């Protein structure tokens, strides 16, 4: 928690504008909903009401016209259990698409109206068909035709949208010998997964039977290790996996230099030269297309582009290779998730452990 943490990040000269929206439910995850119009903006929240023990997924509309920014619930979906992973995308016909997986193991694809974000249809895979236990992560391919789901049971599944229904295909089953905690598409045929021991796997659908390449972070020499919680892959750097996980760790794995990760942040690396944006779990990492790399002259394809992380110890920060992290927020509680608006990359939404949401607008 930020009260005790000694974050090393530098603060911004022009701090972002922050609007806070207290909720009365726990927010597991929050995403922007891709929209067609520049006027209507929507956010998707996966919530859990601890008083009644009911999970819900809500679409809120953001009203920027009025003087004070407001979040108003538009539509609600009731999943069978708490949502473990939430992603948004667009269908080939540019309909907003929400993919939500649950702790009971089900997967739900929700198609929203492109204008008013009302929920139009839902396809789902019931619990126990995809995974034994919870789905730990789901990711939707750009264009929305296919999802990858991974679980701690060691299964990797592909779920495709076929006309009116869904088709499921098991890519791999480690039978629990390896557990997966994160997944991210890299290209129409490739995706990456992450798991325990700072491990990453690269999968290519053209080469079935298993991962085509594997990486295991062993810079700690077996003393302490951690879990990968989130992966991002930049569309212009498809050969590089950016991963965030335990001990404030953010590292990049370049497939071309397989066993030499680039560590961007983390206290577990034992290298004092590496700045650390935070010391605890990095729950989410996303490339930040808004922050211009400070080192413009040196954009080689091996340099890692700037990214944003959120952490258990309440930090939302920009991390960049060989640079001091820039703190956007330092909260007294965990920041569970965040999302950068694809259409307005200066805008971010994030959810706090203490039942509230914030929208940040960077200058």
């Amino acid at each position: 928690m930020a009260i005790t943490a000694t974050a090393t990040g530098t603060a911004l000269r022009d701090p972002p504008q922050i609007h806070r929206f207290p909720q009365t439910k726990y927010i597991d995850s929050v995403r922007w909903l891709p929209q067609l119009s520049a006027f209507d903006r929507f956010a998707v929240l996966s919530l859990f009401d601890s008083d009644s023990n009911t999970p819900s997924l809500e679409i809120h509309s953001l009203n920027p016209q009025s003087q004070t920014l407001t979040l108003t619930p538009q539509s609600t979906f009731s999943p069978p259990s708490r949502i473990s992973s939430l992603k948004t995308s667009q269908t080939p016909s540019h309909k907003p698409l929400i993919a939500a997986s649950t702790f009971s193991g089900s997967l739900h694809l929700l198609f929203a109206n492109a204008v008013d974000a009302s929920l139009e249809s839902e396809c789902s895979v019931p619990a126990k068909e995809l995974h034994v236990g919870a789905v730990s992560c789901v990711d939707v391919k750009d264009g929305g035709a296919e999802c990858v789901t991974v679980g701690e049971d060691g299964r990797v599944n592909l779920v495709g949208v076929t006309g009116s229904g869904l088709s499921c295909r098991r890519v791999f089953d480690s039978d629990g010998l390896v557990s997966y905690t994160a997944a991210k598409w890299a290209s129409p045929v490739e995706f990456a997964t992450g798991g325990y021991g700072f491990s990453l796997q690269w999968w290519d659908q053209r080469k079935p039977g298993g991962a085509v390449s594997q990486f295991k972070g062993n810079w700690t020499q077996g003393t302490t290790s951690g879990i990968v919680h989130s992966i991002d892959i930049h569309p212009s750097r498809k050969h590089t996996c950016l991963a965030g996980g335990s001990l404030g760790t953010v590292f990049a794995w370049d497939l071309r230099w397989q066993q030499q990760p680039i560590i961007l942040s983390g206290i577990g690396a034992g290298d004092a030269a590496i700045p650390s944006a935070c010391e605890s779990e990095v729950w989410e990492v996303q490339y930040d297309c808004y922050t211009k790399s400070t080192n413009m002259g040196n954009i080689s394809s091996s340099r890692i582009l700037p990214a944003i992380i959120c952490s258990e110890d309440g930090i939302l920060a920009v991390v960049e290779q060989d640079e001091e992290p820039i703190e956007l927020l330092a909260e007294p509680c965990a920041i569970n998730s965040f999302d950068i608006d694809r259409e307005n990359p200066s805008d971010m939404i994030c959810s706090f452990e203490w039942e509230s949401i914030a929208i940040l607008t960077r200058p």
Partner: protein
Amino acid sequence: MPGVTSGTGDGTSVSGAGALVPLSSEARSLSVYPLHHGLKPPLARIAISWARGNALRVSFFRQPSGRDSDGAAEVGGKVIEVKLSDGDGDIGDAQFRKIAYGSVSPFALLQSRRNSLATMSKISSPYHFEWWEYVMEYSRDIKALLGNPKSLASPLIDDPKTVLKNVEEPTSLKAAWELMEIFYVDKLSQSWLPERLVDWLADYDCLLSSTQATIHSKLVDFQKELVTLQVIEDNPKYWEVISSALAVGWLDIVVKMLRLHGSYQLDQINNRETENGLVEAVAVLISKMPRLRPELESGRLGECYKAKPDFVKAWEKWRAQITKLDCSAYWVRCGHHQTREGLRNMLQLMLGNTNSLCTATCHWIELFISHFLYIRPFTAGLESMYNMAQKCMQFKPMSGSHGLLGLIIGILGENTEVVLAECSREFGPWMVAHAIELLTAESDQAETLLREEHDNLGGISIEELHRLVYAQVLSSHSLTWQIAPIYLASCIKQGMGLLEILLSKQPVQNNQVLLKIIEICRLYELDSVSSNIMKIAGVYHWKHGRKGSGVFWLQQARDEVRLNRIAQQLFDSVGKSISDESFKQWEGLIELLGSESKTAGGLEFLHKYRDFKKSLKQVNDGKTNDAARQAVESLISLMKNPSTPQRFWLPLLFDSLKLLSWQERPLLNVSQTNLLLNKLQELSMARLRPDFIEADLPNQALSSVRLALATNLGRAILEE
């Protein structure tokens, strides 16, 4: 802890935490609460179990019975959870959590300031002369969480008929907090304490309406009537309400209501000139009332005087004006009886006529406040206030008791124990844990009382006790338990003990919770707790079929014993499955285990074994010489390695028969062959021991290996 839930059926809010407060003399009657289980009697047995924090789970078992008339099996029992928590009945769960979250930062900041002051000024008391200012800042931050009621008498939109605004509901929690802030922390308010209490009552009089009639409730009632009234000044209630409002100093309301007087209406002015003049004269006097206070909110009536002498002068002058008006000849010329009487009564109130004040007020606290305004504006010292309050209570006995009143009496009576008891009983553990900072801000006596360690409490102070109690309340909810460590960290004696128990009672099945526990352990340096919890997680995942995660957590926990056991278990499976299709699956696990990792225990054997099997497979597949040499190297390194389990020796050698009797030339040199022969010898000895585990191999395995080795030795000697 002990507080007992409100809403268990009898509608009263009871908090048992009060008993932890030094009220030993008070004879408490035992509270019996009903527990509704909805089962058909008779019950055979009841079982109890504490869940986290102060949630108690009660299981009820019915006498086993046959089927009921419908043929359906009856419910055989039930388990219910009772939360024995705080007494703050008037706020909801979500609101409570909001307050709990919000108070973490101010509390932590204040603690860290105390600690840094204590280290900075070891020479003197940690209480720097500015300490109260820190507490004031803390108090303001906390107060901001408790709701932000707009003041009662600040009309926003000027609807002339609305004398009372529908303001946001103020909370008792905030009222109590503010009261303690006024008396215990805010040094600046000491010089104008009476006026602060006037303001306080203006903000919170409505809360007292819940137990008995107040001026506020009178105003609310009259407001409803007001709309229908034609000639307002004919209504005796109008004058009654006006004088009541005047008695407690709600000047804005009084003046506003006076201006509703019929004589102000344009068509009336001519006939009722004198009457109107008198009304206006009173209104002007009221709005010019001198107040001994630094400032007034803009738009509020009265004239402020910071210095006492200036105030005395103005006060005398003002009273002289009132007296003059009272003796004025104009009264005779005022034709409207009610107006004349009403106004003159108001003058009496302003002159401090005790009887009039007593009639105008409903509640003793209102009478008490009116004394400050009109009789003794210089009242200072708690003792004189206390005596005054006692007198007021004699005039206006309480019909029901409100928690706030108990608190006021405790404060005025300078009885910290009573204040604490009232806080605890009425507002619950959150209030007590946080209000102790206010009580001790200025008072050495309270400090001694609350920070002294008591043997009866197992060596902790009352302050620590209440923090522990609050931490336990936080622990009982899955969203607030993670705040508890902040409070426990401030408990020097028993905080870490309770934190360890709290952490060990968390579920490890969910990664997010598990990682949070580990993070808390890291922050508070609870390494052994952390490794035990990782151990639990490791065993959980291992036994539930997630072998990779299981090994990961056991490695993190450095649990050599279990890792070695797992190695044993894996050997069996590996031996069976490594050659077949599922080999690929093992790759991931073996990768995860790592070969160098010290924490992997005997698992490094697995790594070598895999390499050996791999090259052996290549040999069998027909790729010869190089593969064979590699396989032999692996074999030797396996056999040399102390972590290779003995029961694997024979199977390894038996698998290698082809290598041992390699056709072209001996693959093992003399010393290598001797090493293997020695191992074989050791094995034969070990077989005699009762605990030896026989490998699942053909009977002649040992002898054929021995023969092959002997042959190889012979060939090797010849070659050398």
